[in-house]
């Protein structure tokens, strides 16, 4: 499921639709069918996204490089937290379980052979850790049935999972989300289209180049410039003491 709530919001504001139309030509008309084909490819592309680099980071961590594992933590802790927040209501408890999950993952990393994607393996550990945590408290997880191991394979950002946030974190989340969305809205059209097709639709650079009818190198540059522009607006929020980098 690639059409997230955020995608719908962006579509409503014209990000996706307008830009797709803007780059539609007679020779490259994006029909509903071709768009569906691309989204299927995009789903596959997202599944493969960085799997190789993740494996490289895992191997480095297995050789004793804790910083390599830190890059994986930076990359996946938000996704894992969001997944586990479906099982555990309290934000502080979710954070504890996320932390414990990563430590367990690190301790078990020697057994990771790369048969599955790292994030699938990590999510399994996270779910089991959450279940054990709730059982240890004598609690019956209210939504445990909804999150089973099998769901991990199909877990996608677009799935309707709502984080249980405290007022503070909710405010912070909204502030960050608003900043990013405002920054995207203010981007030049070609940058906005490139980053949207990449992050929301999950298209490869080659597909984006076909849609936008430009070289792949241009796509690479546009996506980079879009990210840097957004990051410039985002850093004041992220570089607070609460978000200082390890």
């Amino acid at each position, binding site marked *: 499921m690639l059409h997230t709530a955020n995608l719908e919001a962006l579509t409503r504001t014209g990000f996706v639709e307008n830009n797709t139309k803007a780059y539609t030509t007679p020779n490259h008309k994006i029909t509903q069918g071709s768009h569906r084909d691309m989204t299927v490819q995009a789903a596959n592309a997202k599944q493969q996204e960085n799997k190789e*680099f993740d494996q490289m980071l895992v191997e480095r961590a297995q050789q004793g490089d804790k910083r390599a594992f830190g890059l994986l933590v930076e990359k996946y802790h938000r996704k894992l937290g*969001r997944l586990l927040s479906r099982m555990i209501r309290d934000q502080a408890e979710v954070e504890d379980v996320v932390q414990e999950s990563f430590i367990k993952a690190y301790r078990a990393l020697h057994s990771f052979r790369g048969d599955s994607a790292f994030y699938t393996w990590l999510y399994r550990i996270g779910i089991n850790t959450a279940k054990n945590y709730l059982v240890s408290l004598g609690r019956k997880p209210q939504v445990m049935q909804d999150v089973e191991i099998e769901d991990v394979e199909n877990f996608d950002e677009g799935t309707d999972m709502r984080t249980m946030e405290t007022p503070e974190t909710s405010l912070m989340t909204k502030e960050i989300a608003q900043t990013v969305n405002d920054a995207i809205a203010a981007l030049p059209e070609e940058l906005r289209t490139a980053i949207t097709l990449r992050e929301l639709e999950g298209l490869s650079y080659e597909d984006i180049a076909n849609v936008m009818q430009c070289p792949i190198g241009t796509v690479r540059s546009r996506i980079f410039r879009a*990210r840097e522009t957004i990051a410039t607006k985002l850093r004041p929020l992220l570089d607070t003491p609460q978000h200082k980098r390890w």
Partner: protein
Amino acid sequence: MKQQLSALVDGEVDVERCEHIFLAAKSTGEVAQAWRDYHVIRDVIRDDCWVESEMTSRIMAQLDDEPTMLAPQAMAAADKVTHIRPRLSKYSWSIAASVAAAFFVGMFVLNQPEVTATMQIADNDTDEYVVAHHNYAPNSATYYMHNVAYNAGE
């Protein structure tokens, strides 16, 4: 560098060529900061933002207390270094084999009967041998063959 990192985040860079990006990303510089920023942006755009308080730093602080891991894969990599020993052993065996061969050849030579004795036997037997086998000679040259002691004139 950051543009390459951006492409790497999208899986659009050959992993075998990203060692320098990896080294920069795990440092504390702006490339490392970009690693965080690009993933936060992605998570927000994909409606996957989950705000934590110092989560990464908390985990990394706890990892500092964990013993450094050396998984089997890493051990295998380390074994590649120790494989130098067998290579040295091969040379050692070659040298040892050469020495042993030289020893046996030397022993064989030293245990041979003295040369003078061998020649005496040859001197004594040659006449009888030539006479007994002259019929098998291709011509009559053997009739003219005489056994002459090399020291006959002394």
